[in-house]
């Protein structure tokens, strides 16, 4: 079953998602740094996150973060669980399934305000 394929893709996705999350982190530390310039400047910067375009980017980020998290657990299991290497292919399938299962409701909440979907949270449906 394992011919280097799922192993290669999981490795490549892990690297790309990691670099993507790092890129976001480097932006995010700067936008939080706007706190130093008072409410007007900070709110102006942060309000960008509420736009439809940045919400779509946030969804991509969340998908990448979820994959990186679950695949990280898979890597740790390969390293520390004696049967980890044998089941790595099956674990990759589980990682993909968990990523999608967790991504869908997150995407609903992130995109909800754009389409007026009820979210029931602070600002929900506003």
């Amino acid at each position, binding site marked *: 079953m394992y011919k280097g394929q799922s192993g290669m893709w999981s490795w490549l996705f892990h690297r790309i998602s990691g670099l993507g999350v790092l890129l976001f982190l480097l932006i995010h530390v700067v936008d939080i740094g706007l706190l130093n310039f008072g409410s007007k400047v900070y*709110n102006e910067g942060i*309000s960008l996150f*509420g736009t439809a375009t940045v919400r779509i980017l946030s969804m991509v980020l969340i998908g990448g973060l979820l994959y990186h998290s679950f695949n990280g657990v898979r890597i*740790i299991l390969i390293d520390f669980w004696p049967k980890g290497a044998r089941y790595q292919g099956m674990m990759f399938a589980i990682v993909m399934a968990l990523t999608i299962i967790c991504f869908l409701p997150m995407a609903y909440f992130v995109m*909800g*305000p754009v389409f007026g979907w009820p979210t029931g949270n*602070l600002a929900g449906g506003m």
Partner: protein
Amino acid sequence: MRIPSGYGPRPAGAGGFETFSWYFFRISGVALIFLALIHIFLNHVTTDVSCTSYQLVALRYTNPFWRLYDWLLLTLALLHGMNGLRVVIDDYVHSRGWRLTLQSVAGLVTLAYFMLGTITLITFQASGALGPGCLH
């Protein structure tokens, strides 16, 4: 050289930075799963991102717990991510000069971001008009 088979105890390595890095990725990774996913949940699900305003931050940061939480997230994510970048640079940049240059830049970026984030988290004091609770 011992080839890892996935069975038995880990071979006793010589230690050193790469061994430390290997463990750091895994330990910080486990902590980051909780820190980062809860952070996302709080700022995109229980509160929409459009309400993560100055006012909300001012309210949250009256509790030092959230400053500590955010500082842990900042520190572990930055070190985990920049250590990943270090590995990527080592993998793809074969010229010795360029590798040294890029690793130095990455090191300085890590330090600068750690300082910016830490200073922001420690020194933040809400002042002046807090502005609206939600931004539209």
